[in-house]
């Protein structure tokens, strides 16, 4: 049985897994869910160098789950958290992930390498539902080498804490 049945992946960790050459092994071990905007827009943008090659996730459509969130649901999410979202700038794929995450009652874990996403989770009091790539790889026994700072537990903790502080000081959720 696969680990992490409720795992949402952001663009940064996907690109890193490809870069490390462990994407295939990773999806064998984890049930991965990705938002369509991340799969079709953000991963393509971020992995493109000189218009030549980019990461194409379409061959993996049967091995991972790609979810769509309707614009009207995202608009409702956007309106509900307008104050919090006005102080951070996330890409549309992350907006889709977070709207999906907030709407679901399942125990999702969000794996990202972006500070604002961890901060948002901290603001919402859902710190424990954020996970760094470093922690994830350790848990499934795929950790190989030292990863860059933004994939580490320390980075996640720093930004989650910041989101929590914002919330307590009235700059986040009220």
């Amino acid at each position, binding site marked *: 049985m696969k680990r992490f049945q409720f795992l949402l992946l952001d*663009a*940064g960790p996907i*690109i890193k897994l490809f870069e490390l050459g462990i994407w295939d092994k990773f999806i064998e071990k984890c049930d991965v869910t990705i*938002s*369509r*905007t991340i*799969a*079709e*827009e*953000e991963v393509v*943008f*971020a*992995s*493109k*160098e000189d218009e030549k090659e980019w990461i194409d996730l379409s061959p993996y459509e049967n091995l991972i789950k790609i979810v*769509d*969130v*309707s*614009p*009207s649901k*995202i*608009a409702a999410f*956007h*309106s509900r958290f307008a104050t919090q979202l*006005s*102080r*951070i*700038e*996330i*890409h*549309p*794929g*992350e*907006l*889709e992930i977070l709207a999906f995450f907030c709407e679901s009652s399942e125990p999702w874990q969000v794996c990202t*390498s*972006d*500070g*604002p*996403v*961890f*901060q948002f989770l901290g603001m919402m009091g859902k710190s424990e539902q954020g996970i760094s790539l470093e922690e994830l790889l350790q848990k499934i026994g795929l950790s190989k080498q030292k990863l*860059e*700072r*933004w994939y580490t537990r320390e980075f996640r903790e*720093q*930004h989650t804490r*910041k989101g929590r502080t914002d919330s307590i000081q009235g700059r986040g959720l009220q």
Partner: protein
Amino acid sequence: MEIGKRLKLAREAIGYTLKRACQESGIGDSSLSEIENGKREPKFSQLSRLAEVYKRTVDFFLTDKLPAEPIMLWRDGPGNIEDMKKTEADFRRLCQQYHKLELCTAETRKAIFPQPDVTNPEQFSWLQAESFAGIVHNNLCLGDIPSASLKKILEERYYVKIFYLEFAGNAISTVSDEFGPAILLNSRNVPWRRNYDLAHELFHLLTWSIFRVESKEPSESEEKLANSFASKLLMPEKPLQQRLAVLANEKGEVQLEQLDDLAREFSVSLDAMVYRIATLFKIKKETTEQHLVVAKQLSGLHKPRESDKVEPLPERYRDLAIRALREGRLSLIQFAKYMGISYKKAQEYLAEDEGFTDEKISIPVA
């Protein structure tokens, strides 16, 4: 407003036909038409792609209230409406990104500009434009060579958003409820041309509440006022006369070649310098026109230098983007898009930050 209607609005604002929008976004003709007509809802990924194509934020399609479109005031705009709309879209997007960075870093600041002592556009005379330039010169502390510091002071002290892009036309100015005052200058123009355009557009910004009440387009007389203002602002009387006194021969005359050097010193064109001197010393129109013919020949010899190239993004914009990234307020992909760099290059900014702490340190100054 429904998303479909807003998509149509955004498409028309950038001047794209349905066919062009489909080509650019990779969305089928019939699909986009159905989406615009409200017959089907787009996927969010499609909406995100269309936002990129139309140079809008996704927020534009998600918020209830439609933000007011700012008036864009052109200086020598292109005849082609498509070019015009595309440049306006590029400029607006840059301004919105800049504003978002200010919000993320809690650096939204408003400065109070000096105001002219006139409220009615018809009362605004050429003399008032000149005298207003003197007031602005003093208020902004522009010194003897105003072009050397004007841009920096406007950006850093008055928070004017100033961008450089290559486009057909010379400049655009705008004052938006959303992102404040902003100016776009053509990076292909020579520096003295850009300086003059900046001073000219500054007049429009400062008199926005007077002239933009009734008219979206500047009249010929408003343009002349802006030119008088720019001329006086960039070539203030006292330092100019001091320099002329040094250069003048026994007969009290200055050669055109010497004026050319002086124009370079003040970073204005020789034409502008000749006009300014004509105004200052009340030289006859016919004589000035003769001087201008020779001045044009002389100006044609100047070629732009490598050092004349400009960065498209303002320094403050780049600094705010780096700060927002460091403080975890800006995602890496957005940072790359805002800075116009690749994701890989964007990662280098984070890598340089190994020992960074965002702990706030305050230094007592009182």
